[in-house]
């Protein structure tokens, strides 16, 4: 089995592409957890369990961060189109 046969195998290529996407999503989850843990839980000290307030905060944090990212992306594209 040569490296060539690895690179040219279509099923393997499809598998690797899917895994790369999966990996990117997993990295994003790590990133979001990092940010939202700080935002929602840091001041809580030593709690034995996550309250519903904590849970809601984490959920909102994820959605608002993604909204923020989309807003910035659109704004950036807008500026580029305006030639700024």
């Amino acid at each position, binding site marked *: 089995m040569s490296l060539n046969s690895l690179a040219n195998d279509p099923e393997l290529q499809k598998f690797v592409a899917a895994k790369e996407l999966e990996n990117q999503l997993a990295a994003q989850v790590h990133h979001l957890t990092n940010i939202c843990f700080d935002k929602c839980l840091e001041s809580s000290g030593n709690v034995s369990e*996550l309250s519903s307030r904590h849970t809601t905060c984490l959920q909102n944090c994820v959605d608002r961060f993604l909204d923020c990212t989309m807003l910035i992306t659109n704004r950036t594209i807008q500026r580029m189109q305006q030639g700024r």
Partner: protein
Amino acid sequence: MDGAQRQQIMASVQQQLALQNAQELLQKLSDKCFKACVQKPGSTLSSSEQKCITSCSDRYMDAWNIVSRTYAERIKREQHRH
């Protein structure tokens, strides 16, 4: 390449990615909880520091699960929108 070889490669890749994910998680847990729980490093971890670290890592894992679920749901929502 035959099917068995392909399966073997895919399983190996899957394993490596799972390991990478676990390492990433462990690194984040250690960083976060050391920072939160150990203000002045002594010659051992005190029992209060140990309790804090245990609690912190449980909370971080809970948070990771919630974030993971919320993120997956958001992706699904965005896909249905388009």
